[in-house]
């Protein structure tokens, strides 16, 4: 399992290399609400819970919440 972990970290490092530096005053577009990585976090949680109940593989950008007896 640790092999997968190290491969993942290496892959992310590769992905993030080569990024240009964006100064704080150049981030106006990034600050727009629809440029957030998750513009509707509340609704996204409900959707994710539906998927969690019906699909075998779960996991996203955050830690999962409580378990459930979803059928």
């Amino acid at each position, binding site marked *: 399992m640790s092999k997968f972990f190290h491969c993942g970290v290496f892959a992310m490092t590769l992905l993030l290399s080569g990024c240009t530096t964006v100064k704080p005053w150049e981030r106006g577009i990034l600050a727009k609400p629809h440029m957030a990585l998750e513009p509707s976090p509340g609704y996204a949680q409900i959707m994710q819970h539906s998927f969690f109940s019906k699909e075998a*593989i779960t996991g996203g950008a955050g830690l999962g919440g409580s378990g459930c007896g979803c059928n």
Partner: protein
Amino acid sequence: MVATNPSLAALTAAALALPGISSEAQAASPVLSPEAEFNFAYYNENGRRMAVEIYQIDAKAPVGSEFELSFHGVKDVISGASPIFNLPDITTESVPQSPRAAPTVHARSRASIIAVPIIPRPTPPLITTPTPDIKPLPEPIIEPTPVPIAEPVVPSDSEPTPAPISKPIADPVTPPTHDVPQQLPLQTRYVFGPVRQQFTTQGFTDERNVFDTGFSYFIGDHKLTLNGGASHENDYVSNYGSATWQGEFNDKTTTVSFGFSYLDDTVRAINRPWFSAGKTSRQYLLSVAQVLSKTSLLQSSLNFSVDQGFLSDPYKRVYIADTGIVDDQRPNERYQWAWFNRYVQHIPALDAALHFDYRFGFNDWRVAAHTFQIAWYQPLGQQWQLALQGRYYTQSSASFYQPYFLTHRDEGTYSSDYRLAAFGALSGGIKLIKQFTDIPLKTEIAFDYYRRQAEWAFNGSAVDAFADYSFTLASVTLSYRF
């Protein structure tokens, strides 16, 4: 610093929260003022299946300049019916027996016929009908023999179960009385036809209540969050806690998060009050978000979870042809990985945002899944915004999954839970968002449609098509900043 204009406040908060990442990875500063969000959603599966009313509330408030409190609450009102197990349509037929052929069971799906030799057992499920004195027959007479089929399962102690195929079936062939040359003996065999899901006959109702509180401490470019909560249902109790560290680097263009959560759950069954079992889950998260340019963001996250204990579903059953109905029995351990990626690109010509997500996940139950999601957020002016999204999910089946089993497995694990089958699912949704400017209120209505099809799996076929279904999710959200 307090911004009184809602739009300015929102923009300022977002700017401070650069690189503009979501609640899973917010930046190292508390919210500027208390904010709350209420969400009502209605989940509805097609046919006579599940329906859930969902009431969700989220609130955050700053405490001084270094702390933040958060609350998350959910109430689900659940009703409907759920698949319990699968039964094939079973008929018998008689065919001439090859001198060396073993008795066989045929499983017939829409597209294939599978002949499985039956290994002799202490109580052989199939009895070859020897016909040493058989006389010639123009055609072998094939009479479908009724095989006990389960009554729909009632969630009670006196659960009727279909009998296993274990008794000899009456010879369907009537020996003629006149003398004719001898023929090969006839063999009776079972033919397994299309599969049907068996549901609870009585719809059940339940409630799920979730309470979760969080406490965040901000110091410099770092944030430490502790969360704790509980979820309670009549047949399931979950207690959990988590800790997450987050740091910003490279002039706040890189955000790194590491988190750990622990769940301690108790599983019960409404129809078996004496039943209680435990399971634990440990989840590890490593996430990196990066500003790629003035108009693009990327986030990549690795999830690893270890689940131990009772990982079956106490309501699910499995039909084994030579045994009968048994409990769903899964391994008591599961290791799972998920690699989740998000990319956001601004489209200057339309001031739109294109979101693309991809996830690959797998576990040691041999389930592997790909998820692709794309969304387009289009501002319409007057603070209106329209979003369209589509999603495709596909998974392979668990190693111990089959719609039903012909005979026992040496591993002793069985599941016919449709969620462990191979399938693909397409979903699409639309969302309309309005940010008011005279009051600090944002409203959002959303509608999503999800359809699962066995044949949409990457490596799928129509064998599990009996389990196909769809659901809709409609939602209204109100967000208020005090």
